[in-house]
């Protein structure tokens, strides 16, 4: 049984119609961002890579275990993309028009795989700045924080990279396709989906897509 994450279905929205405070929860941006978990987790520095590499299974099975672990942490859709010659750094800079991409060093280069995790999002986090509207982001951060930490504890590199083109990467990882606005559309959730910041890793995996 996967760890339960909240469901954001239409029925859920309807069930809050009588709640006079629900709109505040979803749409009012926090007065102090320190009150949000998203800021805390996003700003947390990554830990060290465990010095001894864990004994791995075959790449196909390791990939299925990564997906199983992500699912247990709450991810509803998980895919793995092979990055070929396009490094995460290059992807990040592309997505920002070559401006200030992160990270600013070569740390993110030479990581051949990206793990894309997505959760259902009935409220679009881009237009719902309240703590409730940002719940898909919070859930995505929980998944990627613990999953990337676990990969580092296996003895491999894992970097959660903000500002990459998450939706395009998710489409490349086989989670769905991009619509006219460049947003991911999935068979399960349509466009009501949030793609968490991808994890770039050198853990030997088998790619989807």
């Amino acid at each position, binding site marked *: 049984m996967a760890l339960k994450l909240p469901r954001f279905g239409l029925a859920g929205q309807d069930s809050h119609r009588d*709640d006079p405070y629900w709109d505040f929860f979803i749409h009012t941006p926090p007065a102090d961002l320190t*009150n949000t978990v998203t800021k805390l987790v996003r700003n947390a520095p990554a830990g060290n890579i465990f010095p001894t590499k864990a004994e791995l*299974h075959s790449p196909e*099975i390791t990939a299925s275990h990564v997906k199983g672990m992500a699912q247990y942490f709450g991810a509803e859709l998980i895919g793995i993309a092979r990055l070929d010659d396009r490094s995460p750094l290059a992807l990040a800079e592309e997505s920002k028009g070559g401006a200030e991409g992160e990270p600013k060093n070569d740390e993110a280069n030479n990581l051949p795989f990206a793990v894309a995790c997505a959760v259902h999002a009935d409220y679009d986090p881009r237009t719902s700045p309240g703590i409730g509207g940002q*719940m898909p982001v919070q859930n995505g951060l*929980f998944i990627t924080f613990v999953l990337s930490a676990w990969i580092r504890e296996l003895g491999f590199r894992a970097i959660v990279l903000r500002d990459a083109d998450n939706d395009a990467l998710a489409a490349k990882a086989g989670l769905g396709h991009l619509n006219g606005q460049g947003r991911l559309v999935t068979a399960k959730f349509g466009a009501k989906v949030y793609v968490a910041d991808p994890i770039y890793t050198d853990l030997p995996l088998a790619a989807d897509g």
Partner: protein
Amino acid sequence: MSKAANIEPPPEANTSAEFPTPYLGRSVRFVGKFVNVDMKQSPHPKNQRGELGKPLFNWYHNTVSKDPLTRVSAPNHFADRRHFLSTVVNQAAKGKVNPQKVPVSDAAAMARHIKAVARYMGADIVQIAKSHPSYLYAAGGGRYVQDGTAKDDHAADTPEDLARKFPYLIMSTTAWDYDKLQAHRHLIGDAAYHISQIKGNMILKALEGYIKELGYTVLRGVAVPQAVGIASGVGELGRNGLVINKKFGARVHMPDPIMTDLPLVADEPVDIGVEDFCKICRKCANTCPTNSIPFGDKVVHNGVEKYKINWLTCYKLRPYVHDHWGSCLTCATVCPYTKPQAWWHNLATSTLHNCPFILRPILIRFLKWIDDTFWGVVRNGRVQWLGYDSGVKPGEHACTVAGCNASHEKAGATAVAGNVGYYAPLKENTNRFVKREP
């Protein structure tokens, strides 16, 4: 005989006009003079100071788990503290209370809202208790949030002052999953316990932040979680010392509650039959690897009548099994209330709840017979999950993943067959910790 006739009024100990002795349901009763729990004398702080002996001190502070998942999910056994989310969340800077307070004209609506918010964030159970000084840690003892800090401007306040200023306690918690719990005393059971725990900690932090954004004060590390769990109706206190919930049984965390001045409406303690069941069942006492759970009746401890476990012997086992698992969970797993979400479980608990007290012993003996027959006295089944396999004997290595063609240096010789799981330590090997009661 009606249920109402069986519920005795709370005794008049520790009574004041402002704070009458609280009613905590049938499983726990205040019967005498109660002294507030000193947070510094609770197990983890005592161990942190080295007062429980070197093995426990070193287990707590100086051990790194061999398991990568445990290193990111269990407190204090990480190789790198930055990989443990609860540390990140609990040690973060505290946000400010929004000066633009959201007015609350209907406390009941706000209580429903807070519960909806917590569930939306992923909580499995959300209940509210009316604050009472008895639920709070003693004055001057400081705050306690494991792996975190909880400083605030009210540290010098007495429990009575705090209960006046902050009249509500919110218990928002998560349950750990049933299937993996069947491999308790194993890393698989640990995963279920610890991942749901860090998820719950994050939800509490988010809920705390949201209440501040509503314009109200939040205190953490102030209240005894079990007291709040019982007072708010999360469940009843069992023989195993755990709060037992109607839906999830004993597989629920009791994290640090949120104390607040947000106007809410409190819930009441519940009767789900635990009081009657624990008198008869004793499965947890029979199967506890350290004999830390009593077979006898309740005792009065610090003015409270309850089943009292021997927490020290329970705690002492951990350094000796560190290579195999982190959290025992036997008493939670074998509890007949701990069952999956299924119609037959709901039927059993509802029937028990609605059964007159006088007939409950007959019903309980029947339900326990069903549980022993179909679930068993203790589970020793094999559980496999993402490369973990409880069919591999402790201390041995084997890759049992179907289709894996990788060469494993450690995987060896052990052939794993059948449906038997191995869970160290065996009961007969643990009598060195404490002898079973005669």
